[in-house]
C-alpha cells in the first residue's frame, strides 16, 4: 500500500502540486489510522533515497518531510523522532536535497516529543554542513525557518558553554542574506536573540551583520506580483533589530551620527528614525553620553535644512532625547550643560541675522527643549530669551518683524502647553519669565496686526496667531488687555474686505469658548451697533447683513453666547416688525441666520437643550402669526426650519406637549400656549387650518406646521396613528395654495406623516380612501394645474411608501410611470417620479424619517427595467421624457448598483447629455463623473459621442455654472483613467475646443478648464 502511494507521489509531483498534496494527505491519514507505520513509509522510500538521480532523491526526501510536517505533533514517539533526526542530520552533506532536508528537520523540531537536548547537535550539524551563499533562495529560507523554530522554542536549551559557538554560528549563517523575504526572517530572529540574550563579546559581530544593511532600500521587481514586502517593512524590521539591544549603543550611535552629517535626505530620515526608536527603547544611560554628539551632527539639519520632514523629525528626536535626559537626571548640571550649549549656539545664530528662517528654526529648537517642563521653560527663558526679546522690534524692516513674530509664536505655544488656557484646570504657577516682556510684546504684536497695510497678509496673520495665543493663556493678560485684543479681532472679523477676517473669526470663536463674558461685553455690542447703524443708514444690502450675522453665529459656539445671540436676534426681529420702516432684507437675514445657527448647533451634537428654547418657540410662533401678512414665505420657511431643529432634538415629553399645543393652534379654535397673548390673539383666534384654506396669507402658516411636525419622534402617539383629517386638509392645501414654498411644505408634511406612521394597514386604507383615489381622476381629467398638483401629492405619498418599503410603494410608482404617456402631463410625471428617489433635506433620518435598508436599490431594480423597455419602444418627445426619468433615477441611487448595468445604460445616458433639461444634464454628468474610474473600458467605446457632448456643454452659457464645471471635470478625468493611445485621436480637438472655456465668466469654470486642458496635453 505504502509503496504504491510513494510511487504515485513521485509520479504526480511533477504534474501538479495539488495532486501530490492529496497523496501526502492520504499517507498521513493511513498513518493516523494505524493502517501504516512511519517505518513502513521510510522503508518504501528507502530505495529512492539513495537513487543516483538527484531529482528522485529530492522528491523522496520531500515526501518524507512533507508527511512529517502534516502529521499531528504528538504522533511520533521520542524514539522515532531521534532516529529520523539522525537520518536527516546524516544527509546534510547531500547538498542537492538540502531544501527538503531542512523542511524535514523543521518538521521534527516542531514535534512534541522532540528531545530538547539534541538541539545542540542539530545546531552543530547545521553550522558545519551549511554554506548559505551556495544555496538558492528557497533552500536558504527553509534553513532559516529551522533556525526560527530553534530560536522560538529551544533558545534556552543553549547552555553557557555552547553559547559562543551558537552565536558565532548564527552570525556566519545569517551574514550576507540578500533576498528580502529571507531578510525579514533574519531580522526577526536577530531581534529575538538580541532582546532575549545578553550578547557580551559578540556585539561587534552581531552589529556587523545587522548594520551592514543600513541604509536599506528595496523595490520589488515588476514581475513579482505576489511579493508583499515593501521597502518600509524592511526599514522597520532593520530599525527594530538595531535597537533591540542597547549593547549596540557605542557602535550604532557614532555610525548614525556619521550618516546624519553627510548623506541624502532619505538616509538622514532613516537614521533619525532609528535614533528616536533607540531613545524610546534603550536604558537612558545607554545613549545619554551621545547627547552632545547628536546635537552637533543634527544642528545643520535643524537650523538650515530645506526639507521640512527632516527638520521636524530632527526636532522630534531632540525633544525625545532632552525629555528622557530630564526624566532620568532631573535638573542636573549635565542637563543644564547640554541645554546651555544649544542655547548659546542659538543666540549666536540669531545675533548674526534675524529673519523668518533663522527665527523659525531657533524658536523650534527652543520650543523642543523648553516644552519639556515648567522648570526647563523657566530655565531656558531666563538664559536665552533676554538676548532675543531685548532686540529692537518696532521700526525694524518687515522681514525682521516677521522673524520675531515667528519666534514669539513658538514661545507662546510653549506657554500655552505648560501654563494652560483659560478654563483649564492646569494650576501651574503663572509667575512666568515672560510677564516682564508682556507690555512690550503686546504693543509690538498689536502694531504689526493693526498698524500694517491690510494686504500685508503674512505679517498680519503671524501677529494674529501670536496675539490669540497671548489672549488664550490663563491669567496672562489683564482684563483691559483682553478687551483690547478682542476689539482688534472684532475690527478685523467684521471688516468683510479684510483678507484675514476668517482667521480672526476663528480666533474670536475660540476665545468665546474660553472667555464668553468678554465677547458678550465687547464683540456683541460692537457687531450689533454696526448692524443697527447700517440698517438706519439704509446703506447695506442683504449680503452685508448676512455677513455680520454669519460672523456672529460663528463666534457664538459657547452656550451662554449662543443664548445671548438668539435672544438679541429675536428682539431685533420684534423691533423690525414694530418699526414703520421694516427692512425685509434684515428680517430675512436674521431668520436665515437663526436656522443656520440651530442647525450647526445640532450638527455639533450638543446634547444640552437650554431651557429657553420653549420660550423661544412661543416667540417665533407669535411673531409669525402676528405678522403673517408682512412676512414672505421664504422667511416662514427659515423659521420653520429653526422650529424643526429645536423640536427634533428635544425630549419625548416636550414633543408630546408641543404637539398638543400645535394641534390646538392649527386644528381647534382654542387658545394655544404657543401664542403669547400680546398682540396677536385675534389672528390666532380666527385661525384654523381648515379656515385658512380660503385665505392665502393664513395658508402660508402651514409652513410652520410642517416645521413643528417634521422632526417629531416616531413613538409619539400623534405620529404613530395616521391622522386622516390632517392629511386630507394638507392635500387641499396643495391644490389651493399659489406659493411653491407652501406647496412643498404641505407635501413634505404629508410624506413625513405617512412615512412615520406605525402600521402598514393604516397606510393601505388611506391610499385606498376616496381622498387619494380621487387624485387619479384629477391626474387624468383635471386641468394641467390640477393634474400637476395631484401627481405631486401621489409622488410624495409614494416617496413615503418606497422609503419604508411598503408593499404598495412600487405598484404606485408603476402607476405613476404610466402617466408619462399622457399629453401635457409628461413633464410633471417625470418630476414627480424623480421626487420619489431624490433625497430631500427635510425628510432625513435626523428627522426620524424611515429609510429602510437598500430601499433605493429595490426601487431601481423594479423601475429601471420598465423605463428601459419604454425607451426602446417610445419615439420623439416621449422618449426624451423616459430618458430624463432614467437619468434622474440613476443620478439618485448609489453608483455601485448602477455600474453593472452600465453597458446597456451608458448609450442612453449619452443621449441625455444633449437634452435641454438642466437637472437631467446634472444627474447624468454626476453619474459619469463618479463612475468614470470603473467604466474606463466601456467609456473608451463611446469616446466618439462622449467627447463632443462634453465639449459642447461648457461652451453653452445657458447651462448653469455647476453643469459647465461638471462637464469639464468629466472631460478632465478621461486622460487620468483612459489609456493615452485611445485619446490621441481626440487630443487636438479637445485642446482647441476648450479655448472658449478658458474665458468663461465664472472663475471656477475657468480654473477647471485650464486644469482639464493641462491634463489633455498628453
Amino acid at each position: 500500500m505504502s509503496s504504491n502511494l510513494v510511487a504515485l507521489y513521485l509520479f504526480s509531483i511533477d504534474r501538479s502540486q495539488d495532486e501530490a498534496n492529496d497523496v501526502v494527505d492520504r499517507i498521513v491519514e493511513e498513518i493516523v489510522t494505524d493502517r501504516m507505520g512511519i517505518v513502513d513509509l521510510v522503508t518504501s522510500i528507502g530505495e529512492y533515497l539513495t537513487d543516483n538521480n538527484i531529482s528522485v532523491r529530492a522528491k523522496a526526501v520531500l515526501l518524507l518531510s512533507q508527511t512529517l510536517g502534516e502529521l499531528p505533533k504528538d504522533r511520533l514517539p521520542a524514539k522515532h523522532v531521534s532516529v529520523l533526526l539522525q537520518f536527516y542530520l546524516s544527509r546534510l552533506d547531500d547538498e542537492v536535497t538540502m531544501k527538503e532536508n531542512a523542511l524535514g528537520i523543521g518538521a521534527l523540531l516542531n514535534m512534541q516529543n522532540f528531545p530538547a537536548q539534541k538541539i545542540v547537535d542539530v545546531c552543530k550539524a547545521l553550522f558545519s554542513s551549511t554554506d548559505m551563499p551556495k544555496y538558492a533562495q528557497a533552500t536558504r529560507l527553509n534553513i532559516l525557518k529551522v533556525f526560527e523554530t530553534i530560536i522560538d522554542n529551544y533558545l534556552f536549551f543553549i547552555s553557557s558553554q555552547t553559547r559562543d559557538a551558537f552565536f558565532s554560528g548564527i552570525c556566519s549563517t545569517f551574514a550576507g542574506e540578500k533576498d528580502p523575504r529571507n531578510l525579514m526572517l533574519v531580522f526577526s530572529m536577530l531581534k529575538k536573540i538580541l532582546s532575549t540574550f545578553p550578547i557580551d563579546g559578540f556585539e561587534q559581530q552581531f552589529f556587523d551583520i545587522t548594520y551592514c544593511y543600513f541604509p536599506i532600500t528595496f523595490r520589488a521587481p515588476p514581475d513579482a506580483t505576489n511579493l508583499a514586502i515593501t521597502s518600509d517593512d524592511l526599514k522597520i524590521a532593520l530599525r527594530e533589530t538595531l535597537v533591540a539591544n542597547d549593547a549596540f549603543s557605542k557602535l550604532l550611535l557614532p555610525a548614525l551620527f556619521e550618516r546624519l552629517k553627510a548623506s541624502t535626505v532619505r538616509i538622514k530620515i532613516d537614521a533619525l528614525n532609528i535614533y528616536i526608536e533607540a531613545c524610546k527603547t534603550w536604558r537612558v544611560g545607554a545613549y545619554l553620553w551621545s547627547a552632545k554628539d547628536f546635537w552637533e551632527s543634527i544642528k545643520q539639519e535643524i537650523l538650515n535644512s530645506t526639507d521640512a520632514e527632516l527638520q521636524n523629525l530632527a526636532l522630534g528626536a531632540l525633544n525625545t532625547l532632552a525629555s528622557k535626559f530630564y526624566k532620568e537626571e532631573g535638573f542636573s548640571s549635565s542637563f543644564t550643560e547640554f541645554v546651555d550649549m544649544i542655547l548659546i549656539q542659538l543666540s549666536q545664530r540669531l545675533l548674526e541675522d534675524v529673519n523668518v528662517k533663522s527665527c523659525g528654526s531657533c524658536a523650534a529648537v527652543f520650543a523642543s527643549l523648553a516644552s519639556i517642563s515648567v522648570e526647563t521653560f523657566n530655565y531656558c527663558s531666563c538664559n536665552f530669551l533676554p538676548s532675543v526679546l531685548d532686540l529692537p522690534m518696532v521700526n525694524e524692516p518687515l522681514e525682521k518683524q516677521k522673524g520675531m513674530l515667528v519666534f514669539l509664536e513658538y514661545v507662546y505655544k510653549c506657554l500655552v502647553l505648560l501654563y494652560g488656557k483659560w478654563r483649564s484646570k492646569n494650576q501651574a504657577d503663572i509667575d512666568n519669565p515672560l510677564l516682564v516682556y508682556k507690555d512690550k510684546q503686546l504693543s509690538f504684536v498689536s502694531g504689526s496686526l493693526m498698524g500694517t497695510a491690510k494686504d500685508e497678509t503674512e505679517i498680519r496673520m503671524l501677529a494674529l496667531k501670536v496675539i490669540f495665543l497671548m489672549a488664550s493663556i490663563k491669567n496672562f493678560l489683564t482684563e483691559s488687555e483682553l478687551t483690547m485684543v478682542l476689539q482688534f479681532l472684532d475690527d478685523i472679523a467684521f471688516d468683510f474686505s479684510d483678507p484675514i477676517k476668517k482667521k480672526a473669526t476663528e480666533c474670536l470663536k475660540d476665545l468665546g469658548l474660553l472667555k464668553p463674558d468678554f465677547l458678550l461685553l465687547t464683540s456683541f455690542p460692537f457687531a450689533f451697533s454696526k448692524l443697527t447703524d447700517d440698517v438706519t443708514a439704509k446703506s447695506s444690502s442683504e449680503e452685508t447683513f448676512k455677513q455680520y450675522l454669519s460672523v456672529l453665529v460663528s463666534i457664538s459656539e459657547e452656550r451662554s453666547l449662543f443664548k445671548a445671540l438668539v435672544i438679541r436676534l429675536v428682539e431685533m426681529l420684534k423691533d423690525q416688525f414694530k418699526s414703520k420702516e421694516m427692512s425685509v432684507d434684515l428680517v430675512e437675514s436674521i431668520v436665515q441666520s437663526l436656522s443656520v445657527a440651530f442647525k450647526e448647533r445640532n450638527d455639533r451634537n450638543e446634547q444640552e437643550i437650554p431651557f429657553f428654547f420653549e420660550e423661544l418657540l412661543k416667540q417665533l410662533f407669535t411673531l409669525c402669526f402676528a405678522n403673517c401678512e408682512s412676512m414672505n414665505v421664504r422667511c416662514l420657511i427659515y423659521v420653520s426650519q429653526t422650529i424643526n431643529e429645536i423640536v427634533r432634538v428635544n425630549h419625548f415629553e416636550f414633543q408630546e406637549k408641543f404637539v398638543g399645543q400645535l394641534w390646538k393652534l392649527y386644528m381647534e379654535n382654542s387658545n394655544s400656549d404657543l401664542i403669547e397673548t400680546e398682540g396677536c390673539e385675534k389672528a390666532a383666534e380666527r385661525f384654523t387650518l381648515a379656515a385658512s384654506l380660503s385665505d392665502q396669507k393664513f395658508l402660508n402658516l402651514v409652513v410652520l406646521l410642517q416645521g413643528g411636525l417634521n422632526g417629531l419622534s416616531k413613538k409619539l402617539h400623534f405620529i404613530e396613528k395616521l391622522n386622516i383629517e390632517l392629511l386630507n386638509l394638507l392635500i387641499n392645501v396643495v391644490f389651493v395654495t399659489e406659493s411653491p414654498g407652501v406647496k412643498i411644505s404641505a407635501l413634505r408634511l404629508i410624506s413625513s406623516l405617512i412615512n412615520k406612521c406605525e402600521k402598514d394597514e393604516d397606510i393601505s386604507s388611506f391610499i385606498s380612501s376616496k381622498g387619494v383615489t380621487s387624485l387619479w381622476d384629477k391626474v387624468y381629467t383635471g386641468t394641467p394645474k390640477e393634474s400637476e398638483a395631484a401627481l405631486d401629492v401621489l409622488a410624495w405619498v409614494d416617496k413615503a411608501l418606497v422609503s419604508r418599503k411598503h408593499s404598495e410603494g412600487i405598484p404606485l410608482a408603476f402607476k405613476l410611470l404610466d402617466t408619462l404617456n399622457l399629453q401635457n402631463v409628461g413633464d410633471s410625471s417625470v418630476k414627480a417620479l424623480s421626487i420619489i428617489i431624490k433625497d430631500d433635506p427635510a425628510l432625513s433620518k435626523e428627522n426620524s424619517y424611515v429609510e429602510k435598508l437598500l430601499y433605493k436599490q429595490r426601487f431601481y431594480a423594479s423601475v429601471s427595467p420598465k423605463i428601459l423597455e419604454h425607451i426602446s419602444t417610445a419615439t420623439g418627445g416621449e422618449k426624451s421624457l423616459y430618458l430624463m426619468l432614467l437619468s434622474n433615477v440613476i443620478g439618485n441611487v448609489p453608483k455601485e448598483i448602477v455600474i453593472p448595468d452600465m453597458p446597456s445604460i451608458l448609450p442612453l445616458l449619452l443621449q441625455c447629455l444633449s437634452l435641454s433639461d438642466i437637472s437631467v444634464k446634472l444627474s447624468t454628468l454626476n453619474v459619469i463623473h463618479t463612475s468614470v474610474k470603473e467604466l474606463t473600458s466601456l467609456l473608451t467605446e463611446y469616446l466618439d459621442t462622449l467627447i463632443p457632448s462634453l465639449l459642447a456643454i461648457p461652451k453653452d452659457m445657458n447651462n448653469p455654472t455647476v453643469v459647465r464645471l461638471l462637464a469639464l471635470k468629466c472631460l478632465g478625468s478621461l486622460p487620468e483613467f483612459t489609456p493615452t493611445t485611445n485619446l490621441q485621436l481626440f487630443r487636438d480637438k479637445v485642446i482647441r475646443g476648450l479655448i472658449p472655456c478658458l474665458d468663461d465668466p465664472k472663475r471656477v469654470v475657468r480654473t477647471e478648464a485650464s486644469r482639464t486642458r493641462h491634463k489633455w496635453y498628453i
Partner: protein
Amino acid sequence: MSANLQNENPEVKELNQLPSRVEEEEDLLLSSTKQWLTEIESEQTNIKEERDPIDPQEIYDLLAKINDPEHPLTLAQLSVVKLEDIEVVDNVEGDSYITVHITPTIPHCSMCTLIGLCIRVRLERCLPPRFHVDVKVKKGTHASESQVNKQLNDKERVAAACENEQLLSVLNGMMATCV
C-alpha cells in the same frame, strides 16, 4: 543636475504662508446643501451670472505650483513668482494683457530662461487668446536681465523651443504638479 546645484540653499516659504484664494465656491457648488429653501429656489430663480474678472491672484494660482527645475519646490515657495509682481488688465471688449515679473533666486541663475519659458507656456495654455502675455525678469535681479527678457519675449524662439521634444518634456515635468 542635482549633483551640482547653482543655489544650494534657497529661501523657502512655507506653503501656508503663500497668498491663496480659498476655493470654497467649487465645494459650495458641488456639495448638496441641507437648507430647505434651495429645493424651491433652484426651480424658480433664473440663471444670472456675474463675471469674475481675471485678477493677479488667479494668474498667481496658475503659476504657483510650477516646480523649480533644480529643487523639489514650487516657484511660489521659492518666491520666484510673487503676487505683487503680476499685473493684469482684463478687458473683455478691448486689449487685455498680463505681465509677470519673475525674481530669480540668485543673480546668475542659468535656469531663469527655462523658468520664464515654462511660465509663458503655462499661461498660453491656460489663458484665452485675447490676452497678451509678457514674462520679464524683475529689474535688478539678474545679471543678464535684458538678454533673458529678449529671449523670453521672442515669439519665434519660444515657438521653436516648444518644438524641441526634449525641452518640452522638461517643461511638462515642471508643470506636472499644476493639476
